């Protein structure tokens, strides 16, 4: 009876999936160097002019600036809120823990259209104008579950009575958190910040409802998709962003994983 040579089938399948996954990314990068005004095959020639034009487009740079600022803001807020929530969830098993966990995890699965639309209604009723920072408010909501996950994963790897030991030696509870807990989870705090930054930076659905006349980068890019002549510049920008994002996330993952190795129960 012939044995199905599974190892090579699995590896082949994996390779195929990888190729398909990276294909669009590769295509974008290829077209960013394509010396043609439209995105069609066949390819025409090599050029860097699209990259040059990226730096010259003030609209684009402005949208980029917006995205960076609100990503920084929402990542900061999400990491702080997620950090507090993580400490509460890992260290305490009191009534309310389950409900909090459930509610903070819901944004993971709720369709973004609902989140965007409901926030639109809220901002309108409360009288807050639509703007890029408004989008940032929504980004915090979708980022909190990830922050919670990353930070609590790290916290769980440490003995659970370190705060108690610090208090025994004379520290108040908040001092114990500051001198012991936060230093210990700091790699996770950074990793969470980087991930939440990426989430906000790339986010389009919610932003499309909340930015009003402002633009975040994804919103700007979408608006340019209608103009074929503008596309190569958008693609060039996309290539830059993709590369930077990948680098940042790889660094963040490395942080997260090297942290796991040094923690001991």
């Amino acid at each position, binding site marked *: 009876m012939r044995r199905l040579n599974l190892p090579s089938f699995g590896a082949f399948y994996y390779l195929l999936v990888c190729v398909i996954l990276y294909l669009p990314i590769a295509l974008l990068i290829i077209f960013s160097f394509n010396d043609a005004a439209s995105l069609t095959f066949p390819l025409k020639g090599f050029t860097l002019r699209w990259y040059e034009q990226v730096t010259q487009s003030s609209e684009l740079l402005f949208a980029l600036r917006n995205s960076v600022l609100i990503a920084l803001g929402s990542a900061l807020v999400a990491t702080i809120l997620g950090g507090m929530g993580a400490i509460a969830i890992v260290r305490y098993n009191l009534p309310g823990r389950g409900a909090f966990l459930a509610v903070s995890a819901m944004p993971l699965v709720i369709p973004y259209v609902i989140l965007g639309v409901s926030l639109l209604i809220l901002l309108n009723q409360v009288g807050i104008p639509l703007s890029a920072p408004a989008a940032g408010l929504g980004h915090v909501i979708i980022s909190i579950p990830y922050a919670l996950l990353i930070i609590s994963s790290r916290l769980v790897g*440490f*003995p659970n*009575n*370190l705060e*108690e*030991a*610090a*208090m*025994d*030696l*004379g*520290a*108040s509870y908040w*001092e114990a958190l500051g*001198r*012991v807990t936060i*230093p*210990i989870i700091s790699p996770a705090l950074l990793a969470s910040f980087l991930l939440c930054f990426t989430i906000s930076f790339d986010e389009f659905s919610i932003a499309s409802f909340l930015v009003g006349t402002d633009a975040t980068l994804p919103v700007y890019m979408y608006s340019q998709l209608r103009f074929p002549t503008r596309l190569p510049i958008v693609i060039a920008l996309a290539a830059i962003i993709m590369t930077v994002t990948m680098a940042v996330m790889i660094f963040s993952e490395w942080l997260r994983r090297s942290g796991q190795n*040094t*923690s*001991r129960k």
Partner: protein
Amino acid sequence: MTDYAVELRDVSKTYSSKRGNKAEEVNAIHGMDLSIPPGKFFTLLGPSGCGKTTTLRMIAGFEVPTSGEVFIQGKPMTDIPPNKRPVNTVFQNYALFPHMNVLRNVAFGPTVRRVPKEEQDKLAREALALVQLSEMADRSPSQLSGGQQQRVALARALVNQPAVLLLDEPLGALDLKLRKAMQIELKHIQEQVGITFVYVTHDQEEALTMSDEIAVMDKGVIQQLGDPATLYKHPANRFVADFIGESNFINMTVVSSKEDHAEVTVAGKTLRVLDPKGGEAGRGAVVTVRPEKVKLSEPGKAPQESLSATVNEVVYIGTDTRYMLSLKDGQPMVARIQNGSGAEWREYARGDNVKVHWTEDDARILNE
């Protein structure tokens, strides 16, 4: 009052636990009164769940008594949080701070008190010298062995010179030889610094080795309080007799009781045993005698006051041989005979009929 290092007055601790849908009240500690004299090595000894750790944590301040009060050096601790009590704890899992090196771990107490940096270092190094770990000051805790981590935890707790040092089964994670060495070392350190140690363990041998005084606990109640020798030789009740060392428990009937001795009958024979409490005749009593005090003889070569028994099992343990016996009325007994040589000593085999006897005062009636 102010003579005691730690006092618990009528302290109770109740937990409500959720079993399914019902909230149950669990009594961890019942109305405990405890006075711990200063400068002693005091141990709370008992099986898991007896409340010893809860008691320790109430002294530390991590648990709050449901009723009653805790006093440390005569001052009530009712509203005082752990970080303000003159008490430090050595935890079972050491709880060393992984992001600090050994020196900074030990210096944590002084750091929090904002002692000047040079002073911090000096105090920390002194504490490390006390536990003989001076050369490890710059290492990180993960680089140390279990025994070394334990000593760092000890140094860290001692550096604040607390009135009372609490130790929550700190030797549990160490292997046997290391544990025995650390027991001696801990005792020496306690004698050296003179601080009151309150030690929690379930290991009765450990307690007997190290303690000046032991409180034996079961189900949230102190069963007996005393020094090791007293607890061993004169257990107050069945629990203590069974928990500390090994005991035989034999049901006998009291014939008469005079002063502190009683005449009892068992399996057709009459014996005299210690009867500390005294009491009426005719009652049933449990007599306890330690296996190592039980002597065996061949029938015919035994003293008058001895019982007939059959050998069920023989277990050779190097230094001793354990004999599991049955008396004529079926009651089991264990005898622990030191292996030796010489005219008087002999081995017995399964099925042998032997005579069981002991020195009169080695058997006593248990008060229940």
